[in-house]
């Protein structure tokens, strides 16, 4: 294809390259390397990175550059495979370390079996929703658009390539400067004006958030409204009305150094807004499922009839593969529950597997919707609810709760990743069936890599965790602390219930996904929401000034450049920090 440009194009010969061995093998290789590296990064810094953009760029270099025969769509398969493998890094690194840190005795094989079951379940429950999310609701998936822009860049023309590179350069330079602490990572106007931390008036310097807002436009505005409600109304009122502990309550210790930070993050955010936001997310997603039931049904019926008749079926995985997959993955998860704690009893193990599967499906839907609308994933919150559910269902037993939590976390990650890749695929014309098949084939690969990395790093004991200067495992430590508080009987059920009711009520409004957007805004620190909101406002203003077409021709490649620039620079900054720390 790209290796020759004679004046006459060939009319027969090789089929159009799509799902090839080169794409799959190369994707698995990149994915495995990224999984191992990002698991280490997660233990050190507490976050992982998305591998889609890295894989797409490496795909260009190897498939088109070195092998000189890759097509745009083949590179999409390569990127789908690599990011599908890498999804395990977050799922494992955020949960499994808690078991080591708490000093629990557990069967490592049960972790692997549960994680593999979670990866497959995540895939098979989200695939039938492709039509609903991408074709009917037409969710934006800003990162999916960014990756598609990157994949389309060979044919997008010089002007669009320049805009993409320009956006990339600006974003990369700024992110590099914040990463190396040359400039601050937020503009804290509140602190400049002497306002307390609970009057949040700061803007995160993140061109990826700005780009995501720019791509979302009007649809992202309720998200900003939710953030304003949480941080400009509820938070100040709660402090001023004494609904939270006040400075006066601290009088007995004759000191209130750090009160503002504590009340903002530990109380307002940790005890009120975040759990309420999680509840709103869940209620909003449930009401969304009810509201869009006819379309969901229609999407599944069309999958089913395509399978039976063969018409149009070549583009979708047959429904019986998906239902069969759900059955098999459920049985494997049940087996993992049995292995995790053989003393639990068959009834309880079955209950854990059933609830785990249902929760994984719902949480996967929530995370995919949130990512589709804003590019922000509430994965940790949904995993936390999953672990909490498993904890209560297992009668307060930490080991099966976390092991099933690993499965839920990986499954949720697969849902969001698959849907983002399917969006990229839609924009470049890939066949969904081939993308789904490729990711189904490899979604388990990251599990042994990530688990193996954790085991190796733990070594003879104490290889990571609190007190370890090299690898503090922040997410695992946080989960261990949450498990300890659950063991003490603390769970903000009131906030989850109240939030759930709000989310369900918001389902009546005609704007789809309102509950998910408002819940997500409450779940996040406000500075990210503001930056995203500026992007949405810029989109509206530019649309009015220049029109829709200009947005598509100019703003989209720039915004895609912003997202790609920050993603790749994050990787560079992390590598720099690891090398020089």
């Amino acid at each position, binding site marked *: 294809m790209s290796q020759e440009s004679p004046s*006459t194009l060939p009319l027969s010969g090789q089929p159009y390259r799509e799902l090839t061995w080169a794409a799959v093998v190369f994707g698995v290789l990149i994915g495995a390397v990224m999984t191992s590296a990002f698991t280490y990064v997660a233990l050190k810094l507490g976050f992982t990175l998305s591998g889609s953009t890295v894989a797409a760029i490496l795909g260009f270099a190897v498939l088109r550059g070195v092998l000189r025969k890759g097509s745009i769509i083949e590179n999409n398969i390569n990127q789908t495979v690599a990011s599908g493998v890498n999804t395990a890094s977050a799922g494992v690194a955020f949960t499994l370390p808690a078991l080591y840190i708490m000093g629990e005795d557990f069967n490592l094989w049960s972790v692997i079996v549960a994680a593999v079951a979670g990866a497959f379940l995540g895939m098979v429950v989200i695939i039938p929703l492709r039509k609903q999310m991408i074709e009917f609701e037409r969710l934006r998936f800003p990162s999916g658009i960014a990756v598609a822009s990157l994949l*389309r860049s060979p044919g997008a023309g010089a002007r669009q390539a320049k805009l993409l590179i320009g956006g990339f350069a600006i974003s990369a330079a700024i992110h590099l400067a914040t990463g190396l602490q040359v400039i601050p990572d937020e503009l804290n106007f509140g602190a400049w004006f002497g306002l307390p931390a609970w009057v949040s008036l700061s803007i995160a310097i993140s061109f990826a958030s700005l780009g995501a807002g720019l791509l979302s436009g009007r649809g992202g505005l309720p998200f900003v409204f939710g953030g304003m409600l949480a941080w400009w109304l509820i938070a100040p009122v709660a402090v001023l009305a004494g609904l939270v502990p006040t400075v006066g309550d601290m009088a007995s210790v004759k000191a209130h150094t750090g009160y503002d930070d504590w009340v903002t993050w530990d109380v307002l955010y940790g005890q009120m807004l975040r759990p309420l936001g999680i509840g709103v997310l869940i209620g909003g997603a449930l009401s969304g499922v009810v509201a869009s039931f006819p379309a969901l049904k229609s999407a599944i019926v069309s999958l089913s009839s395509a399978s039976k008749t063969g018409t149009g079926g070549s583009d979708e995985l047959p429904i019986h593969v998906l239902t069969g997959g759900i059955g098999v993955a459920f049985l494997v998860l049940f087996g993992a529950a049995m292995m995790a704690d053989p003393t639990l009893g068959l009834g309880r193990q079955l209950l854990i597997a059933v609830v785990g599967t249902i929760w994984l499906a719902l949480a996967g839907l929530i995370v995919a919707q949130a990512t589709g609308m804003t590019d922000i994933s509430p994965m940790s919150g949904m995993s936390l609810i999953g672990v909490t559910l498993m904890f209560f269902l297992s009668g307060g037993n930490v080991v099966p709760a976390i092991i099933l939590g690993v499965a839920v976390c990986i499954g949720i990650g697969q849902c969001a990743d698959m849907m983002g890749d399917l969006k990229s695929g839609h924009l470049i*014309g890939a066949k969904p069936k081939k993308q789904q098949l490729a990711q189904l084939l490899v979604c388990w690969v990251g599990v042994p890599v990530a688990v193996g990395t954790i085991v190796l790093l733990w070594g003879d004991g104490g290889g990571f965790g609190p007190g370890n200067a090299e690898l503090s495992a922040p997410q695992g430590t946080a989960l261990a602390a949450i498990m300890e508080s659950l063991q003490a009987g603390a769970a903000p059920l009131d906030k989850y219930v109240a939030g759930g009711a709000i989310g369900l009520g918001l389902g009546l409004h005609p704007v789809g996904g309102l509950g998910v957007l408002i819940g997500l805004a409450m779940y996040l620190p406000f500075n990210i929401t503001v930056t995203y909101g500026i992007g949405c406002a810029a989109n509206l203003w530019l649309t009015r000034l220049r029109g829709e077409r200009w947005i598509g021709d100019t703003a989209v490649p720039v915004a895609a450049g912003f997202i790609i620039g920050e993603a790749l620079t994050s990787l560079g900054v992390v590598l720099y920090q690891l090398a020089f720390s």
Partner: protein
Amino acid sequence: MNQRIGLTLLIIGIGLTAGFGSKLSPEVRAALVDDGQQVMAQNAVDARFAQYCVTRSNEGAGDGDGCGDSPSLGDTPEAVLEQLMASAEILNIKATQARVEYRLALKRLVDLQRTSGSQETQGPLARLRAWFAVGGGGFLAGWLLLLVGGWMCRRVDDSTAVEPASGDDAIDFGTLLEKVHGSVAALHAQMLTISAPSVADAEECKRRLESIQVDALARLCGSGPRVHARHGLQGMAALFSPLSAGERKLNRAWAALVDRHWPEAVRSIGEAEQDLSETRSALEALL
């Protein structure tokens, strides 16, 4: 008018439900006070310790009591306090004063730690009941407003969606669909006539395809909300299923043209034409 009233009720409802929903039960608040006092006391200890170390250094007392390279006095505040009390080191007045302040801060922390833990953690159900007792009334009132506001907005939205389009939306879905279908069919027909395609042909087809995608197809695919309101969710699904498939195949044709794979481009354009034709049939069935 109804739209504004609905939106106002919805906003007030969200504000009330979120406000009352985030209220803490008295027991949780009391536990947080306990927690906060310990955090503040710990912060005070850290600040006094840092101040003490700076004073020691400034006064030439060298390292000691955990400052600088000297070993830590203990793992717990209690152990550190005990060591400090037992210390026989003689310092000048400024350093002694800083050490006394550090010791006092430590003592407050130790006293707090001794008295804390007396409060039992409120379990999830008890917490839910206690929250409802203090915030349930306001929450329910807000929830009612939220439901009424949401319902009014939905009613208004449904009624305006079936009104005739105006301005940019004046060209309706059917007309736009016909235009896109016609353009794609013409492009497909032209591509079929080219027996020996050149790079220039591929570039020309790509340019025409981009023109269809940007000018009309984007508007067609962006009209989902109006189609939804007009034909219901099932109707929208019936239209958007083949339409989106057609859109994807046009994207595929574009990629194939960039990759200079002429047969795939022609095939994809042909399939897209068929999908658009199916969309037209689905629209006729709905009308």
